[in-house]
Each structure stands twice: as structure tokens, then as C-alpha cells.
């Protein structure tokens, strides 16, 4: 699915949270959104997900304007504890993602098992979320996003709450999932390394109210790997570039 963002803006009360933003994200593209804290990244993601009404402008998914959570879009929230339902087993949590489209029972079971295998947790279906570690819960949240067989995956700092090792694992998991499912991915992150390592393009937002400072193409070779990619000189250049943009003093003029 192609995402078109047309002069999208949002204010909370009379405080602007997002200045008009325009961008186009192609089918199957992986775009990372970075920017200083409070600049409106989560707001942008919620607008894309149809979870917040837009103030101005609009979002189009394959030419269709978004008003409310669209079919074919899955969201992974930053706070997995408040996104998985602790009273349901992992299997039932995952099943909820497909309730809206009512697949046949066998088909649903198949999708759940496949999603759990994809995230490396094939044996947890009968457990409750609170019986899993934080990183495992985050992986369940990703698996749930996959059960809906989305064509767009929106993720809000999905790896912020896990340790470095799990984080690296989850990053590679997401790269593999993109190969496997061919989805369009928008990833909000605080982590400059992560954005450059994962994405095809990095959208750098300005301090609040956010607008696009730079739309940076990440021209790193395809299969990416923690050791190989991060050792490339080009990786270091891009990383420095994004870093410089994010760290820019607030008064700075447009690039």
C-alpha cells in the first residue's frame, strides 16, 4: 500500500503539535521517522493509523482518505503492557487481530502459528502475557500485528523498552518480516543508528511543532546485517548526517 501525506497538521487545544507535513511512502518501502522528544512523532503515527482525527490536511492509503482505523493497517505501540490484553492468552490476543475480518477457524489458527513462529515464540500460545518477559511480550505484540496480514505496519518505538541484545534481535526480525510479508513499514524511533540501519528513507522532524527537516535516502546495500552494515563507511556518514540534523540547535534555519 502506498501512503500519501498531504499537508497534514495537528494541534492539541491551541498548541500546534505538528506543522503541515507532506510526504509519499511507496508500496513496500521502509521509512523511519526520527526527531527530538515531543516533536510529534507519535502524533504523526496516530494520524496515519486513523486513531486521531486530523486537524488539517489528510492521509491517503492507495488514494483512499483515512478516517478511522483502516483495514490492512497494523499498529505496534511503544507500550506493549498496555497494548496486549493480560486477561487473554497469547493465542486469544493474536486472534483478536483478525476478528474484524472473520477468517475461517483453521485459517486463523494457521496464521497465528505462523506469526508466532516468525517472531520465534512458537510455544507460547497457551501462556498469558504476564508469564512472558518484556522482550517476549513485545514480540507477541509484533506477532499480533502480523496476524491481520497487514499491508502497512506502523510501529511507535517498538524496541524502546528492551535490552540491547533483544533489540538487535527484534530489529533483524523486522527486516526479515519485511522480506517475508512485503509490507510497507513506518517506524518511529529515538535511535539514530536504528533508523539508518533499518530504513530505506529517514524522515527527520524538527523540534516541536514538527515539520520535515530532511527526507534522507539511505543508500545502503540490501541484505543488511548488524555487523556488516554497521561497519560500512557509508553507514557512519549517514548516521552522522541524521545525528547532526536531530541535534541541530532549535533556532536553525531551514536546510
Amino acid at each position: 500500500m502506498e501512503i500519501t501525506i498531504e499537508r497534514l497538521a495537528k494541534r492539541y487545544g491551541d498548541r500546534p503539535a505538528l506543522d503541515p507535513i507532506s510526504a509519499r511512502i511507496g508500496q513496500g518501502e521502509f521509512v523511519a521517522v526520527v526527531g527530538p522528544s515531543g516533536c510529534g512523532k507519535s502524533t504523526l503515527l496516530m494520524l496515519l493509523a486513523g486513531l486521531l482525527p486530523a486537524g488539517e490536511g489528510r492521509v491517503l492509503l492507495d488514494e483512499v482518505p483515512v478516517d478511522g482505523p483502516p483495514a490492512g493497517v497494523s499498529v505496534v505501540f511503544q507500550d506493549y503492557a498496555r497494548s496486549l490484553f493480560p486477561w487473554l492468552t497469547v493465542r486469544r490476543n493474536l486472534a483478536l487481530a483478525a476478528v474484524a475480518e472473520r477468517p475461517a477457524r483453521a485459517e486463523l489458527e494457521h496464521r497465528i502459528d505462523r506469526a508466532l513462529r516468525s517472531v520465534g515464540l512458537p510455544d507460547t500460545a497457551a501462556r498469558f502475557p504476564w508469564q512472558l518477559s518484556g522482550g517476549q511480550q513485545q514480540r507477541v505484540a509484533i506477532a499480533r500485528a502480523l496476524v491481520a496480514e497487514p499491508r502497512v505496519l506502523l510501529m511507535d518505538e517498538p524496541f524502546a523498552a528492551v535490552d540491547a541484545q533483544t533489540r538487535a534481535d527484534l530489529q533483524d526480525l523486522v527486516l526479515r518480516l519485511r522480506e517475508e510479508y512485503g509490507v510497507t513499514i513506518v517506524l518511529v524511533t529515538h535511535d539514530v543508528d536504528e533508523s539508518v540501519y533499518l530504513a530505506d528513507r529517514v524522515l527527520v522532524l524538527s523540534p516541536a511543532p514538527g515539520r520535515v527537516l530532511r527526507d534522507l535516502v539511505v543508500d545502503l546495500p540490501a541484505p543488511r546485517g548488524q555487523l556488516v552494515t554497521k561497519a560500512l563507511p557509508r553507514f557512519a556518514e549517514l548516521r552522522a548526517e541524521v545525528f547532526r540534523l536531530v541535534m541541530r540547535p532549535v533556532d536553525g534555519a531551514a536546510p
Partner: protein
Amino acid sequence: MAERGRGGPASTVEPGTAERAGRLRRALRPLASLWLLAALLLVWELAARADPSPFLPPFSVVAARFGEDWFAPAPGTLLLSERFLDAVPVSLSRLARGWALAAVLGIAIGVLLGRSRAARALASPVIRFWMSVPGVAVLPIALQFFGVSDAVSVFLIAFGSVWIIATHTADGVAGVDPGWLRTARSLRLPRGALLLRVVLPAAAPSILAGLRVSLGFGLVLMIVAELYATTAGLGHDIALYQQTFRYPEMWSAFLLVALLGIALNGAVDLVERRVLRWRRRG
């Protein structure tokens, strides 16, 4: 509530021996706390013997009476006496009907109110008013409607419990973590699934608290209705024993009512623990 977010380490499913021993100790702990109750019963016994009063027979007399009154050496009736079978099922069925009615209505009303701030504002003075009318005050009016019948007790129990359940449910539903609701919205859950899988379970702690409190109220009101205007049931029996000066029997009925109350509470406890398992993190 702050606890809610933390994920513990994966816990083993099978209880180990240490855990089993801990569970045994936990099961025995209430027994260790019983000594004061036993001491109080002993004080009762001694006081009643030292200064005999027809109104307060010694505990031993009451206990003996209790065995005679409510139990019989007849296996066909599960060792329960005719008196038990005449009174208890009648009373419990009234309680069950009234309380179930209150639970269904109360949860339905509570969900409606909890989901909409406007509905809450619209209904809150009315509900506050009905909550403040002691259920018993409408008893004479209920008699006018239903005559002396089971319906009076059922109505009274339902009326006295429904507002408590409704307000607890409304509080619980209104307080559901917005994070869960946002997730549900992004999953595009249909109304039914949203209610059954997300809203009600998330509000369950509050709903169950309401059900528990209202059960105590229901018991109180069941007895009032039976004391006031019925021809059978535990409350009716208590009134009868009082009026016919059969005080040990009256006390034995008190004891039975108390034990029934404890049993019902225990049952709610059990359900609560099962339904709210997810709140006790790993």
C-alpha cells in the same frame, strides 16, 4: 494500577515442592488467626453460663441445637433436615433470583453509563437518589404492587443491589486504561468483541467488587423481606422462633445464616481469584 505494566520473567508452569509447601502454609495461615474467635466464643460460653439469660443461651447449647435443627441422619437428603430443606432453598432461590437480576441490569446500566460521559451526567442524580432510598423504605410500596409473594423479596433484593453494581461497573468501565481502548480501536474490534473481550474484562475488578458488596446487601434485604412479609424462609423462621420464645433455635438459625454468608462470600472469592488471575503478576 502502577503494577499493571510490568512483565515479570517467564515463570514455570508446574509448582515446585517449595511452592507447594508455601501454598500449604498459606492455606493454614487463616487457621492460625482463628484463636481470637475461639477465645471470644469461649467468653460467650462462660458468660452465658455464669449469668443465664433466656435470650442468650451458651454457645455449646446453640451448637448442639444447630446440629439437631438443620441436619438429619438421612442420606437421601444429603444429611440435611426437613427444616433445612424447607427454609434454605426458598431463601437462597430468592437471593439468587434477585441478585442475578440486579447483576444483569446493573452491569448493563453500568456499561452504558461508563461508555458515555453524557449518559453518566444524565443518570447520576437519578441513581444517587435511588441509592439513597434505603431499599426497605420501598418495601411497603412493593407489597402494594406484588402482594405477599416471592416477588417482593426478589424485587427488594434486586432493587437494593442494582445501583451498587451499576455504579461500580460504570466506574470500572469509565476507568479502563485508554491504552487498551486505543489498541482495540486499531484492531477494529466489532462492538460485541470490544465489550466482551476488552471492556468487561478490564472493568472486572471493579464489577466483581460491586457484586461482592451487593451480595452482602442482598443478604440483609433478603432477611428483611422475609421477616416482614413472607410465609417461609430463614428470616421467617427467625421471626417465628422469636415470637414463640424458642431462643436456642433462633440462635441456631443465626449461626446457619452466618455460615451461609461465609460460604457465599467464599464462592465469590473463588470466582474473583479465577477471573482476576491476570492481575497477580507471575
